[in-house]
């Protein structure tokens, strides 16, 4: 991991002495309305001393820790500073947390996504905390004229036992801030057994602000002279703006201007998160949100079909790829027909072990099943929006984004300003789920502000948000298993694809556990834009795979957990192939834990149980779902989850996120669906797009963590993918019918004895 260490040297310990007073870093979020509480003010030191990029200590021992990553609800704003605080060896009650602005010179990887916040922050933040602690120790050694090695720290105090000298961190902060930072390589990190804060639940640092309605979100931001803007985008995928009649709204009350916004410069090379469905939109600017939203409805615009096009885009690894956007107005019914053709067509071979074709030829029995799932909209509760104040030389953007680094490049190009003149301040996001990795709402707001030469807050209506694309793709997967006459598994074959990407992770389980294995992928071009959605690809393929394994276990006459454990034993003791992504022992560990916690061995009358397990984002999860039939309706009663994500920094908060992922999975499995007719999304608000609601949530969710000392891995996503099959498998037990196509609710309604 030398790369990280080099970056640590270069960035994380940079001190910018002019900021020692802290004014600049603190000022923005306070101006945004997050005024400190009385308690915070009482604790507020008269003077701050910057120890490094992440840590400032006041003369009274109060510590300000900067959360580098954007917060979208996974609670990094609490758990990342917990890592800093533990290694700093301060008391959590001394800690204030501030959201850092986007500041790449000071912070590494200011990105929220891929469940990597804690995993990527683990070593840099531990090192930053430990380095600051060492500086306090060095300052005490200098002050007391004793060897640094004889000095100990505890809960924000520093002590030299031999001489009886003791001081608070605050008393040493002034000197510590002037000392040279020790080489991060030489700084000693705590032993895991010495953690005092990590592993002990801390409440959300923004909890009080949230429950009292303080302004925390970009949508809440306001400055003097600010205008409001709405946007109008084409009504269908495959359409673009032809013309609009400015006079249709120009005289409406409160309307200041109406104009076209073109997001990209012609010669701009798009980056990986530059997905946008409609690069040309109409902006309406006025004096209030309500007035611009009214004008939106009244605006007369003409649209035309867009021809097929191609553009260059940097791929995931930075390599350039050509993106084809076909013309035409697409239909979900056509997507289904095209996907069905691939069941019999060969796909692209992604992995092949042994002789799968031969094994299928000599099979006594072949089990083949095809699964599908539709497009999904992210539907963050806070619609896309952004505040922008663009002046001739400088732009200030305050918006909800998971990926400030890449959108800054885009905004710089579109505004014609150097990147360093674009200040991006990170707002708390009202949900992300992957959607806000694609942040063109920020480019749009910036261009609107530049045009009107005034600060502006742009907001999408729910309809704009839901019909603007960047969806979870529609997928289909066909699984085949070859069995001999004694029901032994000879071969497994997965062929899966989607509109417009394949969901196959070819080197994940059950690859490595089956002698003869074939994985194929395919994709169908589309002009419907897609993007990351909580556990991309895994969120479909896990459901298909784990439903198939359940049916296969039944066919083989085996308990579904026992069957998976047998496969994992094979992968552990005698793995097939070399590139297996997962650790079979840890995978088996979560299945064993969930079997124990759910009392799997003791069935309860009237309770129908399904199991599922999956590995993604470096973590292992197994889930058991209990369904009961009440008044002819299948009801999810209890959910048991077992998780191995290594060390858990903030256990109760981690459980909360796990509970949420499970509810999210149940909701999307039952109801989630976006379809298209002639390019038009058929749903654009919550009256038609059904979201899981309070009464449909499980009665009880238990999230159990495997206790180990492994370095932390992902958590925001891994509990989501297993839900679909755990639910499908339990519904099979409840109804006697397998569910192959999501969403499940319409299929359940077709069953004569059920209502939902």
């Amino acid at each position, binding site marked *: 991991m030398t790369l990280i260490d080099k970056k640590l040297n270069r960035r994380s310990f940079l001190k910018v002495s002019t900021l020692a007073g802290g004014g600049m870093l603190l000022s923005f979020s306070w101006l945004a309305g997050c005024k400190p509480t009385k308690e915070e003010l009482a604790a507020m030191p008269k003077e701050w001393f910057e120890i490094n990029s992440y840590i400032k200590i006041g003369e009274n021992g109060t510590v300000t820790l900067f959360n580098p990553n954007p917060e979208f609800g996974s609670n990094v704003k609490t758990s990342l500073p917990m890592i800093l605080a533990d290694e700093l060896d301060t008391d959590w009650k001394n800690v204030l947390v501030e959201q850092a602005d986007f500041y790449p010179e000071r912070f590494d990887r200011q990105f929220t996504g891929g469940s990597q916040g804690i995993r990527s922050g683990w070593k840099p933040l531990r090192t930053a905390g430990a380095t600051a602690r060492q500086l306090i120790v060095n300052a005490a050694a200098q002050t007391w004229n004793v060897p640094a090695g004889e000095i100990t720290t505890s809960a924000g105090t520093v002590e030299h036992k031999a001489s009886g000298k003791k001081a608070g961190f605050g008393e040493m902060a002034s000197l510590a801030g002037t000392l040279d930072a020790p080489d991060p390589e030489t700084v000693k990190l705590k032993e895991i057994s010495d953690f005092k804060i990590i592993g002990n639940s801390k409440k959300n640092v923004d909890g009080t602000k949230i429950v009292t*309605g303080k302004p925390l979100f970009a949508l*809440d931001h306001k400055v003097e002279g600010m205008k409001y803007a709405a946007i109008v985008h084409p009504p269908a995928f495959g359409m673009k703006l032809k013309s609009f009649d400015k006079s249709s709204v120009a005289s409406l009350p409160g309307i200041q201007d109406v104009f076209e916004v073109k997001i990209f410069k012609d010669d701009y090379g798009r980056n990986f998160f530059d997905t946008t469905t409609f690069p040309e939109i109409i902006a309406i600017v006025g004096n209030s949100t309500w007035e611009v939203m009214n004008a939106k409805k009244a605006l007369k615009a003409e649209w035309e079909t867009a021809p097929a096009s191609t553009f260059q885009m940097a791929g995931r690894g930075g390599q350039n790829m050509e993106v084809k956007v076909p013309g035409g107005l697409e239909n979900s019914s056509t997507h289904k027909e095209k996907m069905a053709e691939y069941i019999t067509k060969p796909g692209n071979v992604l992995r092949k072990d042994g002789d799968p074709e031969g094994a299928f030829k000599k099979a006594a029995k072949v089990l083949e099943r095809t699964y599908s799932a539709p497009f999904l909209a992210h539907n963050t*509760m806070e619609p896309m929006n952004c505040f922008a104040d663009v002046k001739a030389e400088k732009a200030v953007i305050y918006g909800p984004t998971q990926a400030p680094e890449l959108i800054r490049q885009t905004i710089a190009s579109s505004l014609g300003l150097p990147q360093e003149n674009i200040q991006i301040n990170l707002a708390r996001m009202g949900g992300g789920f992957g959607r806000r990795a694609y942040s063109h709402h920020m480019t749009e707001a910036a261009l609107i502000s530049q045009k009107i030469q005034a600060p502006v807050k742009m907001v999408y209506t729910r309809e704009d948000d839901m019909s603007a694309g960047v969806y979870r793709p529609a997928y289909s997967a066909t699984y085949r298993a070859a069995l001999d006459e004694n029901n032994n598994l000879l071969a497994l074959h997965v062929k899966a694809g989607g509109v417009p990407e394949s969901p196959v992770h070819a080197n994940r389980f059950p690859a490595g556990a089956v002698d003869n294995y074939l994985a194929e992928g395919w994709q169908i071009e589309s002009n419907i834009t897609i993007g990351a959605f909580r556990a991309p690809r895994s969120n479909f393929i896990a459901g298909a795979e784990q439903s198939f394994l359940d049916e296969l276990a039944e066919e083989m006459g085996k308990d579904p957990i026992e069957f998976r454990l047998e496969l994992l034993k094979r992968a552990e003791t005698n793995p097939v192939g070399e590139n297996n992504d997962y650790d079979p022992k840890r995978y088996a560990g979560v299945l064993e834990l969930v079997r124990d916690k759910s009392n799997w061995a003791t069935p309860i009358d009237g309770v129908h149980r399904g199991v599922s397990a999956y590995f993604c984002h470096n973590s292992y999860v197994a889930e058991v779902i209990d369904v009961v039939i009440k008044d002819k309706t299948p009801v999810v009663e209890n959910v048991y989850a077992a998780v191995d994500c290594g060390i858990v920094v903030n256990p109760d908060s981690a459980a909360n996120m796990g509970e*949420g992922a499970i509810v999210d999975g149940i909701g999307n499995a039952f109801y989630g669906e976006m379809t298209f007719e002639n390019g038009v999304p058929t749903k654009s608000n919550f009256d038609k797009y059904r979201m*899981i609601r*309070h009464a449909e949530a499980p009665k009880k969710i238990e999230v159990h963590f495997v206790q180990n000392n492994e370095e932390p891995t992902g958590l925001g996503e891994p509990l989501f993918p297993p839900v679909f099959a755990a639910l499908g498998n339990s519904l099979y037990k409840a109804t006697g019918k397998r569910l192959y196509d999501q969403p499940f609710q319409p299929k359940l309604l077709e069953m004569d004895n059920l209502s939902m």
Partner: protein
Amino acid sequence: MALFNLTINGKSQQVDVDPNTPMLWVLRDHLDLVGTKFGCGIAQCGACTIHLDGNAVRSCQLPVSAIQDAKITTIEGLSEKGDHPVQKAWLEHDVPQCGYCQAGQIMSAAALLSQNPSPTDTDIDNAMNGNICRCGTYTRIKAAIKTASQNA
């Protein structure tokens, strides 16, 4: 445009707006009370829930002209010190994830408890079904309402 005299969180306020303007936008854009959130605009998600004479209503579908003499309470005015039993229970259970829907959830829960201090699970389901939480904190919301019910 027309002048409206409103009583919000115990204070008299005057606004000069189009009579059709929903209370949501009067609160957010004209009175800087931004704790009440915009989610759907069609009273389907509950993010904009406020109290009108103590009843939970969706402010995105409530024109300012319909308020008349009714007293409005928003999340900012639910308690003086953020210590309403529902707010305290929310903190105790550490309910929020992203936090965006929670003001609406809390206003629905507070109205429920003021009218039904000891709600059953079904009562809670019915009162809270109009508030979507995309993060899926429903089980904690239910637990927090029960705690608030015991502590009220």
